């Protein structure tokens, strides 16, 4: 485990130095990451500057929720940003060379390039979260801080776990683009809002069919003291950070199992 971590840092450092060879491009990608993520927030800001609240949530509270999701999303991209490449590697037959190197396969894929844009995503998350924190009253006890940190890690693991599970499926199905697209689309569009606006059925689906609720909505209700509005048991909100661990663990088991199904498409 410790040697894997050292290997990861060494390889990621090399990738980062590689990306830094093109300074202008490097900065451009980061700026695009920030702009892309924050533009989604501009929409909420414009509407709430006129209407004040969204299902009882103030601008600060929605920004707080949005910030948690963005932090989790950014953290996920920083580490697992190149998971989606597996599909192409498998289809093109380039996956073969990862199998013959003395480094864990996943580690090789993740460090093959440095996901520069993710710095922008994560930075945007930090900025939004800190700004939102000025607008809401959260009692930042040590426990609350720990919960928030775990919630962000959990959020990152939920997204990463789903992506890893989808990547594992590509050994059998070759094209998983549709799944990646739908999951990305739902998480990045629906994950930023207090889910009660979607009504009972959709809220249920976004909790138990696709675990969007556990990413930011449920943790945010805990930190903002809004758990009264939940239609699920409040325990789900308090245990939300653990969901990421469970999903990622399950996805990893699936990945190990499916890896054996790999049949090279040859050259």
């Amino acid at each position: 485990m410790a040697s894997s971590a050292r290997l990861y840092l060494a390889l990621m450092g090399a990738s980062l130095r590689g990306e830094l060879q093109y300074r202008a491009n490097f900065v451009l990608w980061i700026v695009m990451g920030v702009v892309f993520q924050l533009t989604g927030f501009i929409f909420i800001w414009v509407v709430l500057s006129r209407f004040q609240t969204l299902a009882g949530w103030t601008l600060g509270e929605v920004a707080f929720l949005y910030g948690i999701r963005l932090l989790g999303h950014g953290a996920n991209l920083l580490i697992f940003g190149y998971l989606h490449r597996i599909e192409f590697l498998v289809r093109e037959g380039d996956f073969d060379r990862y199998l013959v190197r003395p480094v864990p396969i996943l580690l090789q894929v993740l460090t093959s390039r440095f996901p520069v844009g993710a710095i922008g995503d994560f930075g945007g998350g930090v900025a939004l979260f800190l700004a939102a924190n000025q607008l809401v009253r959260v009692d930042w006890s040590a426990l609350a801080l720990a919960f928030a940190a775990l919630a962000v890690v959990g959020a990152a693991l939920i997204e990463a776990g789903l992506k890893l599970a989808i990547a594992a499926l590509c050994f059998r199905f070759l094209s998983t683009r549709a799944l990646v697209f739908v999951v990305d689309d739902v998480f990045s569009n629906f994950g930023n809002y207090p889910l009660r606006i979607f009504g009972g059925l959709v809220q249920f689906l976004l909790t138990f069919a696709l675990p969007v609720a556990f990413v930011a909505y449920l943790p945010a209700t805990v930190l903002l003291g809004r758990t009264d509005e939940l239609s699920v048991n409040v325990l789900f909100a308090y245990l939300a950070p653990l969901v990421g661990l469970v999903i990622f663990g399950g996805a990893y088991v699936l990945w190990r199992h499916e890896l054996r199904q790999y049949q090279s498409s040859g050259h």
Partner: protein
Amino acid sequence: MSALPTYFKIASLASQVAYAYRFNVLLQLVGLLLQIFLLRAFWTAIYENRVSVDGVDLATLLTYLTVANLQLWIVFPEGGEILQRRVREGKVALDLARPVSLVGQLISQQVGFTAGLLPLLLAVTPLALVVGVLRPPDTLEAAAAYVVSLVFAYAVIVLIGLLLGMVSFWTMETTGMWAIYRFANLFFSGGLVPLWLFPEPLRTVAGLLPFQTQANIPVSIYIGRLTGVDMLRALLIQCVWIVLLALLVRFVWSKAIRRVVIQGG
């Protein structure tokens, strides 16, 4: 005039492109329906118990958003992206050697592409009725004026697409520019928030940009918010943008043609 059958042929070939990429198009349509559903849930929560805001009730606003998003999807400036691809791959040399003008080829390709997508859009419209709200146009006159306004909107977006495409004669890397365009068009066209609900400094900015011609003007006419003199003024704004952009396209094209660098080939 004699080139007309050629353009028609190009357009009819382009109309089949949508079906070659049917899987991509299908995914886009799923995204479109999700977007319409999200906007409906969002705005329903925003309206809460308000009967109407600025004289627009919730069902009318949701109709506006559904029509606007269906329409923004179908009038995507494909022509610009085709040009960019051809320049990057060096194939623009072939296009320029053809006996009909390149700008004409691009416009016919764009029109053909849109025509190809139209049946698919009509096929998902019943689903848009389920996830969003879609009422018929306010009146018969509104329907007629909407069609006129939609044609103007299409002309504007084709011209903007050509301008953006021509940028690739100066710089090959235009991914960032297209990303900014997509956001600017979705937001400043009024595709997410109708322009009448924009806060003041932003509304003035949106009023000075060409994007308002894409959703806010035609769809405001559709729901009957723009009528009479206001409607004629809005249509005039669209025409002014068509003239301005057409002049700009002519000017930029005359510069671009002298800068053509053929990659490889």
